[in-house]
């Protein structure tokens, strides 16, 4: 048994999980943190308040120069990093704001992944290098006004006209829609669901922005209107048919959310911890009260467990052994617990907890979206329920 003195206790990493990361993984994390500290943190509360991201294209290019966009993909200008490194990047991005992480998730895991995994060589060479560099922004259209959790029933249709395809329909709640250069759109065909790579300058395509959101305000969310959008034969993603196409992409993005949500939790928890140490009531710092300590400790526990789970799933993904049900498990647990951490942190800040002067209410509101998109709590519960019992309860 070793009797040497252990290293000092780190309140931000109570279990010492940092030990499980390699030097390169920490370097990735540090670089993303540094970009966010310079380029996002000073401005994001204001963006949230105004419901916009200033110079989003400039930001995308800086994210591209760092290598974040499509970072876990190989070739075509992508950085070729590990899944765990991608997860760590998502965590740092979302510690700044879920909206920024959403921009990156949709770009890399949804739009780029769809083209990288299921696209033709021409589609890959045309789009991926520019998207990796942040020069072209992508969006991913699956959800419709009347279709959310049950995408198999989608109404958007693509029909053949000679060699061409003609798309008609509407997509709803599409992240990056109004700023996108390219949309990956899923539609019903005579041959099942297929994906299309749609340049947003194509006649008949428009993407009005959705206003009045109270969540994910530092993120562009749009409707996609497809009005007889005519595309050449080469616009269809050739390598996939059926729901497997979009679901494979969602699986990538969900993996990032398993990590990302923890970033929002960490930021809120740190704000609460600092605040509790500085705020005095009844003659002492509120961190000295048992009720506050119980909150802080419970939050630390859930954060630590969530991080261990994320790391474990990351290692499995890097080893090629990660199953979609396990991604559901991570998404369900980590978003739910992170939202709980944000809500509890909010109570510790009292009235200040509802102010954008602190990051907490912003994270809390953001996670309401994260709880719903990429599969709601109910969907992931049903997925796991089926995996555990062998019985489907979807319909």
């Amino acid at each position, binding site marked *: 048994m070793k009797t040497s003195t252990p290293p000092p206790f780190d309140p931000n990493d109570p279990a010492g999980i940092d030990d499980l990361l390699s030097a390169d993984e920490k*370097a990735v994390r540090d*670089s993303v943190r540094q970009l966010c500290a310079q380029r996002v943190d000073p401005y994001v509360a204001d963006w949230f308040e105004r419901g916009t991201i200033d110079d989003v294209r400039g930001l995308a290019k800086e994210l591209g120069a760092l290598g974040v966009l499509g970072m876990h993909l190989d070739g075509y200008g992508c950085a070729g990093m590990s899944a765990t490194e991608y997860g760590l990047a998502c965590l740092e991005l979302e510690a700044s704001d879920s909206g920024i992480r959403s921009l990156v998730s949709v770009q890399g895991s949804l739009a780029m992944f769809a083209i990288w995994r299921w696209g033709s060589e021409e589609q890959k060479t045309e789009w991926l290098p520019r998207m990796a560099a942040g020069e072209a922004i992508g969006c991913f259209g699956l959800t419709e006004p009347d279709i959310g959790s049950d995408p198999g029933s989608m109404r958007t249709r693509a029909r053949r006209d000679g060699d061409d395809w003609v798309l008609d329909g509407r997509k709803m709640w599409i992240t990056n829609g109004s700023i996108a250069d390219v949309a990956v759109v899923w539609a019903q065909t005579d041959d099942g669901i297929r994906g299309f790579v749609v340049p947003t300058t194509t006649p008949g395509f428009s993407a009005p922005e959705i206003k009045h959101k109270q969540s994910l305000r530092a993120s562009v969310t749009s409707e996609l209107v497809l009005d007889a959008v005519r595309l050449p034969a080469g616009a269809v993603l050739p390598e996939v048919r059926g729901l497997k196409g979009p679901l494979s992409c969602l699986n990538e993005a969900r993996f990032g959310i398993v990590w990302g949500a923890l970033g929002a939790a960490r930021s809120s928890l740190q704000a609460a911890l600092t605040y509790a140490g500085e705020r005095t009531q009844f003659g002492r710092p509120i961190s000295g009260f048992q009720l506050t300590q119980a909150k802080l400790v419970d939050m630390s526990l859930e954060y630590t467990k969530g991080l261990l789970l994320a790391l474990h799933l990351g290692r499995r993904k890097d080893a090629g052994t990660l199953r979609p049900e396990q991604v559901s498990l991570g998404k369900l647990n980590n978003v739910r617990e992170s939202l709980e951490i944000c809500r509890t942190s909010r109570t510790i800040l009292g009235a200040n907890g509802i102010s954008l002067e602190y990051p907490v209410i912003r994270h809390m509101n953001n996670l309401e979206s994260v709880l719903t998109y990429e599969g709601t709590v109910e969907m992931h519960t049903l997925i796991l329920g089926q995996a555990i019992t062998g019985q489907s309860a979807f319909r």
Partner: protein
Amino acid sequence: MNIVVCVKYVPDAQAERTFNASDNTTDRENVDGLLSELDEYAVEEALKLAEAGEGEVTVLTVGPDSAADAIKKALQMGADKGVHVNDAAIHGSDAVATSLVLAEAIKKIGSVDLVITGMASTDGTMGVVPAMLAERLGLPAVTYASELTVDGGVATIRRDGDASTQTITATLPALVSVTDQINEPRYPSFKGIMAAKKKPVDTWSLADLGVDASQVGLDAAWTRVESFAARPPRSQGQIVTDEGDGGQKLAAFLSERKFV
């Protein structure tokens, strides 16, 4: 142009820094370390010069095993190769001995046009190594550069003083130390992090440099830390209550302490 950047691996200033109880030297093993922030400016300046023309950047460090992390960070930022002088006998060396080891390493690297250093380390903060190193190498030293240009075999720096701003030139080869005003150091891109894995790092011992162990280390040091004590916790400040005479009270407080 061949540029050598001297960098130091230092205990993280954010962490709790301590001394070794046995010999009063800085504890470099049990505290997380990093590339001294002040040296990042030196690396950045070297990279900018190399990118602007033809050039190769070698990062040089003297330190224990863990100091390899400082080289790695510089390689991730974009330096081409690393040299790590690592020898147990170096432990406890002062600035005089450190400059000796650095000088011999730079001679061994050979045909160096420019040596760039930070203005001081963030742990010792003595700031004397650049001048000592230049002396040992017989190079002109232009120190505390807040701006650097190299043109036609001449390095020109701007040094910002309290009373004046000086423009100083030196013919190459030369040594330049840079301040934290000179640039905004880049952070490693993912491509840089990946590329650094394949960049060469040479590890040299004192024997490789022809330096005798008796010239370095704690026993050869001209100075040593006799004792150390933690700074006492800050005492409660004095609150001046303004009863219409707040200004006078503040002035009296300051003049009592000879601040005004």
